[in-house]
């Protein structure tokens, strides 16, 4: 069966520090991968999605970036965090091709920028 992992689960970082959040998927190959951010009590904002290694689509221009160095690994980064980067970050994956297109979500990372 497929599983999705995210780490760390919780992170507290000062303004201006770098960020690296990691997401890995097991039990599937060549998945679509997604990064979402959820501010407190708010909806999900799609940040990036990837259909393959090195292929990243950005939905929101900001100081965050994403990379997909391996088929089942998706990394969210920042060189300098802002206070507004605080939130709950969710990684998700889905199958390609014909299918029900359900997205499966990871457990999330709670980021607090101080």
């Amino acid at each position, binding site marked *: 069966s497929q599983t999705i992992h995210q780490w760390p689960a919780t992170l507290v970082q000062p303004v201006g520090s770098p960020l690296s959040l990691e997401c890995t998927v097991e039990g599937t190959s060549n998945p*679509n991968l*997604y990064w979402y951010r*959820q501010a407190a*009590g*708010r*909806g*999900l904002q*799609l940040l990036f*999605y990837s*259909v393959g290694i090195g292929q990243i689509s950005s*939905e929101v221009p900001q100081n965050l970036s994403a990379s997909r160095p391996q088929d089942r690994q998706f990394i969210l980064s920042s060189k300098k965090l802002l206070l507004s980067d605080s939130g*709950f970050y*969710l990684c*998700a994956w889905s199958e*390609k091709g014909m299918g*029900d*297109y*359900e*997205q499966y*979500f990871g*457990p*999330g990372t*709670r980021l607090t920028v101080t």
Partner: protein
Amino acid sequence: AQTVTQSQPEMSVQEAETVTLSCTYDTSESDYYLFWYKQPPSRQMILVIRQEAYKQQNATENRFSVNFQKAAKSFSLKISDSQLGDAAMYFCAYKDRSGNTPLVFGKGTRLSVIA
């Protein structure tokens, strides 16, 4: 671009009663998928129910059912016999059938269940 609107930021229901959460969407596509996701206090997103636009029959999963009105572009979620564990944020989502485009989510409805 497709949009999803959930007009009820918060709803409440008495335990064992029935509640309906509203969702409307906008698309020019004729074939697509619709989903309801639940996010409990643990923040883990859980798929509740899915509907394929080409199917006229409304999807049902145990106590959860949808009222899919394609012409009206409406996709409401009905929760019957509400339980305390149903308290959560509920998100409506849309997905084109074609290509690798991501889900489009609504802003969510926070459901409280009163004992």
